């Protein structure tokens, strides 16, 4: 045990008081000067661009009109309840579709990684699905499901909202499947060999060893797709349900003023900010972990 201890000298404590060398002090001073200069240049250029933009726009001959039709506080306040109610639908759809698409994507990816002739039909089906639905435009899938399926006049046909959600789930599921698959295949086979050598079954190996690592690795692109999904959820209004943008459109038609669209846009951005922030944070963490792995 003592023998191990002597091997672990890790972080060396400086034996006496530490004085940086002349070179080190000069390097640090130089770095400080550089940082300061970059900061000043960036600040000034940002300010110049900003002020110029504001002056050009507000000084333009049509500014008063534009302000009236796009940034009318009164109209905004009037439109807010309807648009917010539409946004609530967006939000519910987003959560439902996200869960659905993630599940479909993960299951498809798992099916595509199965080996052996027994699984050929499953694998082929999963491959066909990812090929087909990554190519198909979302709007066409949406129209086919929302207008085509009720046209069959089967009893128990789900509502347009559910059908639209299904269209989103199968389209996004195909994309997410490829993201998951890339993650699974990025895990080195030696990890699987180690797990199997411990007696874990294929399923246990996937669940406890491969998937946790794979999902961590692809969480930045996954979250990015969630941000994209959040916007595409609005397409469902093409089939009837009133989401935030459709609500804004109705308001606009009544008031002949475009401010409701701006309200909807701002609400969308507000909704996206937390998701984007989480994405950035996860990406940063993944990058840091990778550089830590690389530094070993």
């Amino acid at each position, binding site marked *: *045990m003592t*023998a*191990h*201890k002597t*091997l*672990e000298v890790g972080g060396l404590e400086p034996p006496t008081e530490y004085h940086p060398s002349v070179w080190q002090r000069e390097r640090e001073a130089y770095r400080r000067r550089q940082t300061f200069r970059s900061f000043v240049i960036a600040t000034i250029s940002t300010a110049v661009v900003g002020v110029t933009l504001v002056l050009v726009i507000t000084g333009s001959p049509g500014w008063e009109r534009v302000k009236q039709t796009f940034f009318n506080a009164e109209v905004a306040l009037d439109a807010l309840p309807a648009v917010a109610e539409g946004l609530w639908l967006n939000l519910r759809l987003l959560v439902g579709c996200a869960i659905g698409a993630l599940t479909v994507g993960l299951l498809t990816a798992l099916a595509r990684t199965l080996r052996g002739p027994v699984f050929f039909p499953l694998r082929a089906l999963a491959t066909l699905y990812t090929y087909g639905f990554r190519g198909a435009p979302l709007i066409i899938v949406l129209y086919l499901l929302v207008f085509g399926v009720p046209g069959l006049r089967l009893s128990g046909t789900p509502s347009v909202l559910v059908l639209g959600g299904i269209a989103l789930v199968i389209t996004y599921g195909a994309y997410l499947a490829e993201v998951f698959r890339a993650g699974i295949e990025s895990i080195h086979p*030696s*990890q699987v*060999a*180690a*797990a*199997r*050598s*411990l*007696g*874990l*079954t294929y399923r*246990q190996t996937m669940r*406890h*060893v491969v998937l*946790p*690592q794979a999902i*961590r690795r692809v969480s930045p692109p996954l979250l990015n797709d969630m941000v994209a999904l959040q916007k595409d959820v609005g397409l469902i209004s093409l089939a009837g349900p009133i989401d935030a943008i459709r609500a804004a459109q109705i308001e606009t038609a009544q008031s002949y003023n475009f401010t409701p669209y701006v309200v909807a846009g701002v609400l969308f951005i507000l909704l996206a900010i937390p998701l984007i922030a989480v994405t950035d944070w996860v990406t940063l963490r993944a990058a840091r972990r990778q550089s*830590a*792995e690389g530094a*070993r």
Partner: protein
Amino acid sequence: MTTSEPISPTTPRSDPGPGDRPDADDFSGLVLRCRGIRKSFRGNLVLRDLDLDVAEHDVVVLIGASGSGKSTLLRCVNLLEPIDDGTIHLDGEHITAPQVNPDRVRQRIGMVFQAFNLFPHMTVLENITLAPERVHKVPRATAREKAMALLKRVGLADKAHEYPDRLSGGQQQRVAIVRTLINSPRLLLLDEVTSALDPELVGEVLTMIRDLKNEGMTMVIATHEMGFARQVADRVCFLEGGRILEQGPPEQVLGDPVEARTRRFLQRIIEAGRLS
């Protein structure tokens, strides 16, 4: 071969062909018995009709040139690679029979790899308790207790809650060995477990393996460390041309080999400065 005495390296062996039904008597005292192992990768024949017996408490060291099939043999024994022909028996049970569940077999065999292969998303403790909890259905508290006891024995108790990438290579490899020891394997397969280590870290891993030998662990070890082979082996097997060309006590195989090709291999090793 007589039934009672443990297999000794110098005992001449009558080899049944790969398809022959092995005599029940042949298994007494044998943990591992390979007969007529054949394995190829896309037409590249790596093992051809290889035979290997490992008696209980025996330490067998596999040596041979790079690409001679040492790793392949270990992976075949652990059923990580399907064999193309031959039979493998573990404790007298035919583990390459068609209806055998490989997962059940691997629960009784431990394997340690050159690159450690610890799970990077789990702490040291989680790495070690994964198989006991999930495979052997040991209660979590018991598994943790046992893991801590083992870690303590190898001087790594203070690293239990670290992630593997915070450990040195030698520490990681010792954790990897503990991870398989906790399952009380009947047979331990070690594949060049020190090759990825800095020279000053090799010692701590080798010490651990020597301790295991003294405790009676049955092991098959692939290695390029001839000095270590000499110290720890009960028998050294030289792999060449897909089979075991020469085997015997370390002094004989490493010191005074019969076969010219073994001599040549050892000569090259000496020239490379690896025979200590």
